[in-house]
């Protein structure tokens, strides 16, 4: 009798591709699916901002300042008569844009540093990991305070201040993947034949790192949106008259506004909270989809 290998699948086992299995696991996560739908709606609302609100977010009307919700202005008007709903929706573009840009930056830097660190090892690796510790503890808000104070606030500066300090999360991950890929026999064989590090990164490290990094990237987007809102709220981010959910709340620092004009501060605050929550839930769902443990 010939020996059957131990890895022959047991009779009756269904073969499913790992991708499809991941999608099924994601769909099982109720909050993640709901959040994905909610996020889609938010994105659509931001894209079709003009159509939905029907107003110019920068059009002031000094005869109708701080009016409450009405037929014409569904969410009322702000201190210079601008339509709150229009500003809210256009601000969505800024917040989502900055969030995604910062996250992409952090993942890009993280991938480069992480893979270099893993491939080169030695003191390069040691230094990179020490730097990672420092970058991770450095608060983006403080960095932005300093940059805004000395050079002046700008959206680019914000993206850098946020994204540049989030790289350690993805960096460590990619480094781990690089280290394990490096040890694989087929890799050593390929390198013996002359395959360069770039090939290694493109063909093996990136595909292997993609699932966990996508989770980290999603969390990074959520964090970035929150940070942008905070910075704009403090006045060191998006500057008026451009609208950001954060700077729409700067006005709310008066007790009068808080008490009597909820339409001014509740919508932008809720917008940030809901968006960040939704992205975080999606991140949770992705994490379960990618690694069911």
């Amino acid at each position, binding site marked *: 009798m010939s020996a059957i290998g131990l890895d022959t699948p047991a009779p009756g086992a269904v073969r499913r591709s790992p991708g499809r299995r991941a999608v099924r696991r994601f769909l099982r996560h109720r909050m993640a699916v709901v959040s994905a739908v909610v996020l889609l709606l938010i994105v659509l609302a931001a894209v079709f901002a003009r159509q939905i609100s029907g107003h110019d977010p920068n059009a002031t009307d000094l005869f109708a300042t701080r009016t409450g919700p009405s037929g014409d202005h569904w969410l009322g008007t702000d201190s210079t008569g601008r339509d709150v709903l229009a500003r809210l929706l256009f601000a969505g573009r800024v917040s989502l844009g900055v969030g995604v840009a910062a996250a992409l930056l952090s993942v890009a830097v993280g991938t480069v540093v992480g893979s270099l660190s893993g491939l080169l090892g030695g003191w390069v690796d040691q230094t990179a990991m*020490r*730097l990672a*510790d*420092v970058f*991770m*503890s*450095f*608060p*983006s*808000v*403080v960095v932005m*305070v*300093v*940059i*805004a*104070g*000395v*050079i002046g606030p700008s959206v680019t500066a914000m993206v850098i201040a946020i994204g540049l300090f989030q790289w350690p999360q993805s960096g460590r991950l990619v480094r781990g993947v690089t280290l394990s890929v490096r040890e694989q026999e087929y890799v050593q064989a390929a390198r013996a034949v002359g395959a360069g590090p770039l090939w290694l990164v493109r063909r093996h490290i990136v595909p292997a790192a993609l699932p966990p990094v996508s989770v980290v990237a999603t969390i990074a987007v*959520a964090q970035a949106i*929150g940070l942008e*809102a*905070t910075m704009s*709220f*403090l*006045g*060191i981010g998006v500057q008026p008259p451009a609208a950001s959910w954060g700077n729409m*709340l700067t006005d*709310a*620092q008066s*007790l009068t506004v*808080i*008490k009597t004009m909820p339409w001014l*501060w509740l919508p932008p*605050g809720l917008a*940030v*909270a809901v968006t*960040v*929550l939704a992205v*975080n*839930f999606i991140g949770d769902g992705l994490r379960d989809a990618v690694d069911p443990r």
Partner: protein
Amino acid sequence: MGAYITRRLLINVLVFFLITVVIFWLVHKAPGDPVAMMVPADQLNSGSAAFIAAKRHELGLDQPLILQYWHWLVNALHGDFGYSLTNGRSVTSLLGERLGPTIELMGTGLLLSLVIAFPLGIVAALRRNTRVDYAATMVSLGSVSIPAFFMALIAIYVFTVRFPLLPSSGISDPSAPGLADSLRHLVLPALILGVANSGAYMRYVRSSMITELGADYVRTAEAKGATRRRVVVRHTLRNSLIPVLTYVAANLPQQLAGAVVIEQVFAWPGMGQLAISSVGRHDYSVIIGFALIVAVLVLISSLLADILYTLVDPRVRLG
């Protein structure tokens, strides 16, 4: 232990110097004349051109950048951070009088976050995947997702506007000072700061506990006849404390960032509020001074984390 700590110390100091280099680069990027930042306003205004030139020479501003950096750093390490551009006072004294309130806020806030995070995290880990766990996870998710400043605004609405219970600004009421009054002013800011930071800590505590609860040595302890309570408290709690405490220590600079926001919303007279208002006034000296303080905090927190790690984990202590 000595070798490990020494090595970490050297690395941390090196990093600190690198940060100061970056900050110094910013000093020079700032528009305007650096002299204005380093000389008290009264001297500047009353001084003749010759005097200012002499000052410039004295401060080494005509020397190569490296030496300037060195002069500046030495001054800073001696406590001389220059002078405020808005009121001419020394930055050190300005920041100094704000240090107390910020520490008070950060300290209380940190205490509150841990008081919330530890029980929640431990219970969530012990009752994993039950409704209690899901509820706790939702709370932590909310804490992490809802921006602190929005939480603060809602709290102000509830506790100051709707039900006038607590003050929403300042550190005390000048007309009726006292311990009770100070505490009343501290409650809302510290509470919001605590709640806003608790989410991240709670998740850490939970995952740390879950890892330890699944360890083999738990089974050994049970096999010896230990009660569940003893296993949790004597064995797993101690082991899960290690990574959490280290994380808390390393996270101190982020705590400061949270304090900056809370100080702004509640008009709390701390360093953070000063920094924000300095941005609007283009008071570069104060901003740079603030940056230096943060750099020192990064250094301290990193060292603290390293020390804590060796104190609590015997495997490292003797390695």
